[in-house]
């Protein structure tokens, strides 16, 4: 039974994330936590954009907030997102990792540590290699790895790096990832 889904995206990520979330039903239970690379000064208009375009509850991660089912959480600009054992969030203003804050690796390491085999990691489009080592750690701890087919990504480098590093179970297009997540969600009921 999967207890959380973590998703990382960079260049081209906004639309990729929308396309992934749009097919998910409003009663999608497994909590989803997303890191999308943003410029540090950008307002987090992603939350508004995704709330408008999907049927899910989307919100920005708050410090010490409990992680709940039926929720999609977005990392705030300029903070890393960590997960505590009691399934609450901790934000951190540590140094950038892979030139990024929030960093996908940082979220993935922390989630892998807490959820172990009950975690799904997803790497989408991006022009760097953040998320590759994190996905490796998720798989090492028994979790499931999914990567967007590089040829279908706006920027193929990030998915390619994740495939090379983590050898994920699934390398599929966004629409297929959505179907797979819906299936996993049903099975976790």
């Amino acid at each position, binding site marked *: 039974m999967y207890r959380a889904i973590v998703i990382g995206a960079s260049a081209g990520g906004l639309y990729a994330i929308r396309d992934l979330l749009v097919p998910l039903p409003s009663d999608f239970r497994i909590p989803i936590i997303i890191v999308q690379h943003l410029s540090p000064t950008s307002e987090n208009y992603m939350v508004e954009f995704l709330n408008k375009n999907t049927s899910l509850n989307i919100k920005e991660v708050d*410090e010490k907030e409990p992680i709940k089912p039926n929720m999609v959480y977005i990392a705030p600009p300029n903070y890393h997102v960590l997960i505590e054992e009691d399934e609450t969030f*901790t*934000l*951190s203003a540590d140094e950038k990792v892979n030139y990024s804050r929030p960093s996908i690796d940082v979220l993935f390491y922390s989630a892998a540590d807490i959820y172990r085999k009950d975690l799904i990691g997803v790497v989408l489009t991006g022009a760097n290699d953040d998320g590759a080592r994190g996905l490796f750690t998720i798989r090492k701890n028994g979790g499931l790895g999914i990567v967007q087919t590089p040829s279908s990504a706006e920027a193929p480098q990030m998915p390619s790096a994740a495939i090379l590093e983590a050898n994920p179970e699934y390398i599929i297009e966004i629409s297929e990832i959505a179907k797979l997540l819906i299936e996993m969600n049903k099975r976790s009921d």
Partner: protein
Amino acid sequence: MDLNDNNREKIEADLLIEAVKRYYGYDFSNYSKAHIKRRMSVFLSKHRYESISEMQHYVLHNPNIFEDFLNNFSINVTEMFRDPGFYKDFRESVIPILKTYPYLKIWIAGCATGEEVYSFAIMLQEEGLLARSTIYATDFNSKALQKAGKAIYNIDTIKSYTSNYQKSGGKSSFSDYYMANYNSVIINKSLKENVVFAEHNLVTDGVFTEANLIVCRNVLIYFDRDLQDKVLALFNNSLIQGGYLALGTKETIQFSEINSKFSTISKENKIYKKTSI
């Protein structure tokens, strides 16, 4: 019994925290566990230790390694005019009230390498308040404090600080406040005159001063709920009635016991005012 790597690591981490507390007197036991784990794994790979137990040996036996350990744990990441919107808001909503006091005591806790202190000094100067202020700037990291006192920063940072300053409602030209010198800039001496740097550990040290304003930004996020509450109580006890408390953008007093004693001046920028004692 649960014999797995994960469990062993947890035990090793707890033992190291305990050892550091007993030997060096720095208490990290109520820091966020996720944060501790992350810093330990960063430190482990930096020094290429095989395990946390091996790391413990070096941290306990070699004070230089401990100093590095402390730096690694204390995250001195900071900027001048970090979150310009905060400073803009502060200028508009708090400065006019501060102007009504003949003398101001300001405590900036967790000031890291001083960028925030000089940002406040600049703002206070522009508002005609610096001359009647004393700024107590504290941190538990003595190395960071040393750097803060020197007020010398890398020139590469100036471009983004200038842009922050402009967005923060700065009234002058940012270049008025420093002298450039090859690779570095030095902040004008006049901005330091009313600043007192001192070592203070928020976990183990007590009430600091009767302050009109306490600024503590991006420090509480590293603590667990209990320690956050304890430190917020300390701030409450260190503030005069009518005094202000400014936290980081992602920090809040909302869930703590002191919440009822404060009113919210800015929800977005986490500025609070102590309304009752």
